């Protein structure tokens, strides 16, 4: 219980922390995606028109039709849009400037959100190629992808 009370004029305030170690069941499709990450592959799911969603979902985002045709996709792809973080926030995945990016992996038809560790904003460009970097320790989690880096 927080009791380091500070007084702002007439009104009292105190720090409050809401914290919980949430543990989430993934279901089979996201489960396969996370299993793949742990094993060092990226898994997508095929829609009825043949296009591939990455990350995969149990449902078509447009029609809600159930999906379960899992496929493996590439570990490099192109940046469809990006945003350069000048000053990372405390909870951000990196503590030095980096880019958030939507990345369409080879073999995928949709883009996934992750980060690009490019060192400098000048290296970022829409359409650029990036390659996936695995985390040293992988447990089956989105953070098994450490980041993407500019290719070549």
């Amino acid at each position, binding site marked *: *219980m*927080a*009791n380091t*009370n500070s*007084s*702002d004029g*007439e*009104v*009292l*305030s*105190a*720090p*409050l*922390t*809401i*914290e*919980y*170690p*949430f*543990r*989430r*069941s*993934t279901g*089979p499709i996201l*489960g*396969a995606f*996370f*299993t*793949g990450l*742990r*094993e*060092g*592959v990226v*898994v997508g799911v095929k829609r009825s028109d043949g296009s591939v969603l990455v990350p995969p979902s149990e449902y078509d985002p447009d029609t809600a039709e159930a999906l379960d045709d*899992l*496929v*493996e996709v590439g570990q490099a792809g192109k940046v469809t849009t990006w945003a350069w973080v000048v000053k990372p926030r405390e909870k951000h995945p990196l503590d030095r400037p980096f880019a958030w990016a939507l990345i369409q992996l080879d073999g995928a038809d949709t883009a996934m959100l992750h980060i690009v560790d490019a060192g400098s904003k000048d290296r970022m460009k829409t359409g650029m190629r990036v390659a996936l970097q695995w985390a040293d320790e992988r447990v*089956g*989690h*989105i953070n098994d992808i450490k980041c993407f880096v500019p290719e070549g």
Partner: protein
Amino acid sequence: MAKIQALEGVEPVTMIDAPARLDYTFTAGRATSRFLKGLEKKKLLGERSAATGKVYIPPRGADPVAGVPTDEQVEVADCGTVTSFCVVNVKFYGQAMECPYVCALVLLDGADVAMFGLIQEMPYEDVHPGLRVEAVWVDDNELSTTLENIKYFRPTGQEDAPLETYKEHV
């Protein structure tokens, strides 16, 4: 799933850990702050509603019946009557109390609403509606702006309050 070679025969992931922590600065608001500052001086300050004449404690800023602010401060006694209670014997994440404990609704003398408080210094099977109780405060040097200044309530030894005095609250 079978056609992805890397996934064949491996233990599938079914759960992920997603801990989350958010830090806030809680603001008590005007009415609650007035109440808390009273507690620092061992005073229980309720607030009377001009609309209904009722005294609210702890005040939350409004007379909920009329939807208007309560702003006349009224000191109420630090003793009162148990209107109902519960013996808590359940544990949960983040709980501060040791089980079992008695949590009671205490109608302080001078107040028109009962507030939750602990009952101690008596066997919990002897707690009953009508029981007269008084606040046991923390030591003066530990007083601060918190309801935790009241450690608990204990029986006063007075005779039980007659039902008519708290009938509206059960």
